[in-house]
């Protein structure tokens, strides 16, 4: 099998068995990036030279028999994680030349375990978007094609570059961040696995903030097991992030393939929403049958406040972002546009530095926090958020995991939904509630729809029970036997 088609688990054994070297493995990926990135635009910054150097070191470590879980594995890093000495842009003009002198905790953990970073992946500007079309560095193209249609499709967002890179074989895995669905929805659109851990599981230190109470880093890869391997490395308490949680990190790989006998799977009635495409409804039903066959008990549950999820999210997330993005003022780092007064400089800098979607969310957030509106919007949203969390807590008294669709539709074409921001926001309707509640959730590809595009199902678990997600996800993965690959991929490009 081609090196760009391997899973992380298989590549790790291949490296240990000396079937190929880390340099060969990494070079296969950097070559693929050189060949395909001009079209896909999955990476903002590529670091082939550094990656090959790191691969040589990985080979030395392998030769000494001191390999760690990710030694020599080429990964893409969402360009929201600060990487020491490597430009980190958040896909924004305001940071287009920003080179952090520090490493995020999550990427430091991956480096500790031997991972090789091949580049910084594209995203929606400051992770705000669902189609990866708001990037200042241009849109990412989904490597999948509709049957008989060459239209460029969106990869989903905001971790669209990561999803496209992993799907196309430009990385074996990639980091994503998920605020309202930014790992799960692009994973579904690109036919890969994406896991958003429990809020507090991975440190946010060194990750550029969008909405602090929601942002959570997670793995994106081509198998459930690969996500488990990556999460093992990424997760853990960090005293530099007060919201990271000090609890043990279990052996995630051990959960993969675990028996599901007697597991109670909840099916929330409220996710049978309007606008759910027939093919996704069918995939959902198929998922239910597979889990039944794996020994699960299917239980109907209700999450009555689901319908308020999206509205609440679009109050809380912009509110936090309006404050989080205030530091981009052109003074200490980032791009500056001069002005005659301090205020004029702020205005010019931020007008030139931020794209329309970021500006929209800053304006919304500023509005909902303003005197006179705070109670009606922000405070109310926080109360509803508590109710959404309670819905999940109550459901998890009856069931162990929830199964829902990840997104209402498969990937759409660039330009198809971008005129109406509210229509765009609806892509996150199924992913936002788990984000608001801080629950862990995962998207697993389960098949192709009528037009030949991948469809994903979402699993939502109890706080810090990523293991049940991985166990259930691997059962779906196995039952689905999802081996489809996108039209544009490294192997096919040869």
């Amino acid at each position, binding site marked *: 099998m081609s090196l760009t088609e391997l899973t992380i688990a298989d590549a790790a054994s291949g490296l240990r068995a000396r079937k190929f070297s880390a340099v060969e493995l990494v070079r296969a990926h950097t070559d693929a990036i050189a060949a395909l990135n001009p079209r896909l635009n999955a990476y903002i910054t590529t670091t082939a030279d550094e990656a090959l150097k790191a691969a040589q070191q990985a080979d030395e470590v392998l030769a000494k028999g001191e390999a760690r879980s990710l030694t020599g594995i080429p990964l893409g890093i969402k360009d929201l994680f600060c990487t020491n000495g490597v430009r980190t842009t958040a896909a924004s003009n305001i940071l287009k030349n920003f080179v952090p002198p520090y490493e995020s905790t999550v990427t430091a953990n991956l480096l500790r375990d031997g991972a090789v970073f091949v580049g910084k992946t594209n995203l929606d500007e400051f992770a705000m978007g669902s189609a990866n079309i708001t990037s200042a560095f241009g849109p990412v193209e989904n490597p999948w094609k509709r049957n008989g249609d060459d239209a460029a499709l969106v990869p989903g967002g905001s971790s669209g570059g990561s999803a496209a890179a992993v799907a196309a074989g430009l990385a074996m895995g990639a980091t994503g961040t998920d605020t309202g669905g930014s790992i799960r929805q692009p994973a579904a659109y690109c036919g890969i696995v994406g896991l958003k851990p429990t809020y507090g599981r991975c440190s946010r*230190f060194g990750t550029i903030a969008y909405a602090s109470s929601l942002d959570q880093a997670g793995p994106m890869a081509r198998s459930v097991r690969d996500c488990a391997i990556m999460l093992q490395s990424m997760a853990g308490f960090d005293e530099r992030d007060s919201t990271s949680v000090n609890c043990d990190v279990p052996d995630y790989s051990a959960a993969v393939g675990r028996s599901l006998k007697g597991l109670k799977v909840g099916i929330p009635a409220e996710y049978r929403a309007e606008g759910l495409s027939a093919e996704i409804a069918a995939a959902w039903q198929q998922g239910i049958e597979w889990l039944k066959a794996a020994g699960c008990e299917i239980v109907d549950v209700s999450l009555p406040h689901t319908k308020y999820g999206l509205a609440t999210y679009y109050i809380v997330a912009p509110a936090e972002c309006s404050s989080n993005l205030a530091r981009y*003022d052109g003074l200490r780092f980032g791009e500056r546009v001069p002005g005659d007064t301090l205020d004029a400089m702020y205005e010019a800098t931020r007008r030139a530095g931020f794209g329309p979607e970021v500006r929209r969310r800053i304006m919304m957030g500023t509005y909902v926090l303003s005197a006179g509106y*705070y109670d009606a919007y922000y405070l109310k949203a926080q109360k509803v958020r508590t109710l959404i969390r309670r819905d999940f807590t109550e459901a998890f008294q009856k069931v162990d995991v929830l199964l829902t669709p990840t997104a209402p539709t498969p990937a759409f074409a660039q330009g198809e939904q971008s005129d109406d921001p509210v229509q765009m926001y609806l892509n996150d309707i199924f992913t936002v509630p788990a984000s608001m509640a801080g629950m862990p959730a995962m998207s697993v590809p389960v098949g192709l729809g009528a037009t030949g595009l991948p469809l994903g199902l979402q699993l939502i678990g109890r706080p810090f029970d990523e293991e049940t997600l991985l166990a259930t996800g691997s059962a779906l993965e196995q039952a689905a036997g999802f081996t489809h690959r996108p039209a544009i991929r490294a192997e096919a490009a040869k």
Partner: protein
Amino acid sequence: MTYTIEGKTGAWEIVVGLEVHAQVISHSKLFSGASASYGGEPNTHVSLVDAGFPGMLPVLNQECVAQAIRTGLGLRARINLESRFDRKNYFYADLPTGYQISQFTHPIVGEGTVEIELADGTVRHIGITRLHMEQDAGKSMHDQDPARSFIDLNRAGVALMEIVSEPDIRCPEEAGAYLRKLRQILRYLGTCDGNMEEGSMRADVNVSVRKAGEPFRTRCEIKNVNSIRYVMHAIEVEATRQIEVWEDGGEVDQETRLFDPSRNETRSLRSKEDAHDYRYFPDPDLLPLVVEQEWVDELERALPELPDDKRDRFIKEYGIPRYDASVLVAEQAIADYYEEVAKGRDARLAANWVTGDLFGALNRTGRTITDSPISAAALGGMLDLVSDKTINGKIAKEVFEDMLETGDSAAAIVERKGLKQVTDTGAIDAAVADVMARNADKVEEYRGGKDRLFGFFVGQVMKAMAGKANPAMVNEALKKVL
């Protein structure tokens, strides 16, 4: 007597509340590991967190929390076991993140009280509304370059305590007494150095005026006044301005003003309409701050004796007047000095010497108690010589001056100068006889009923004996022969 200002329409009362920003004494800043020490080259005490770099997160410094709790306890205030940090959002060049982290809705310390004493001995209690923790901003320097401003972030992120009083203050003197007392408590606790010149303590002054018996009228806030004297001036100036506005038929606008000491006036900084909308909301990077009652108890047990308690103890233990006790507890170091002098000695005499001659000497030499040229042990040694009648009170003054100059011990000076008090009756009698002989006319006058001359004879004898005679024995001897 209520303090009032006389206007055209009669007497006006003033109503004042103070918001004091006190910089917390701590090694590092409120949410970062950077040094919180004063001074340093610009931008040398700055971490990536303080500079608001992308992805940086605040981590609460527990020592600052302990300091806030100690201060709360010192203000006899309620400690809130659960408090919260909010973001106060505004753009300014010396505010790197674009928001200040502050405890807006849920402060760590609730209601308390501060006892103040006025010059006439009146004691009043000023209510404390709350104390909360917040970050300081950096410093903008506009005078370094004709076209550019410079920013120093050394102070950015340093922990401040904002201590808010109730509008209980009714005159400039009370405001001064309150600030001095607050500073005294903070210094005793070691939670703030109270140095207003360096800006580690600053006050925002809320002032309004009213006729007796009225509810509160509109107030103005005078920002960032940096000395106690200026606070007292500002209150008077602002109250007078407001009275004029009201009496001219106008309305006082709620606004923020600045005090200009050089022109002795306040000027409008911004009106209520221009007031910032700070868009406060809970900081999502920080969890609610929960402290255990056991920890608060532990901090309380370790608190030093507070000034009021010390004053009361001095009155009781040393039998000194309340006024002297208040003076002696003004600073911890003075109180410690006094106690060392007083221990095992005549405590009243010790109090007189410390508050009288020693303070005078410190004033003259521009020293403070901590670098006093005469140590407590040395002053005590001198008092011992007075008590055992080696020297008398008058000679003691001479010895004290010599100690100040030479640093020698009292005993050494007495020895060197031969100042030992003469108690030899023979020598005294001889001196008396000599004085009588040389002043035969005065003796006649005295015996003729001019009693006032007794003092003259005492003086002459003492002079003859170079002041060293035991005054009681001189009296005795004179009475005998006269």
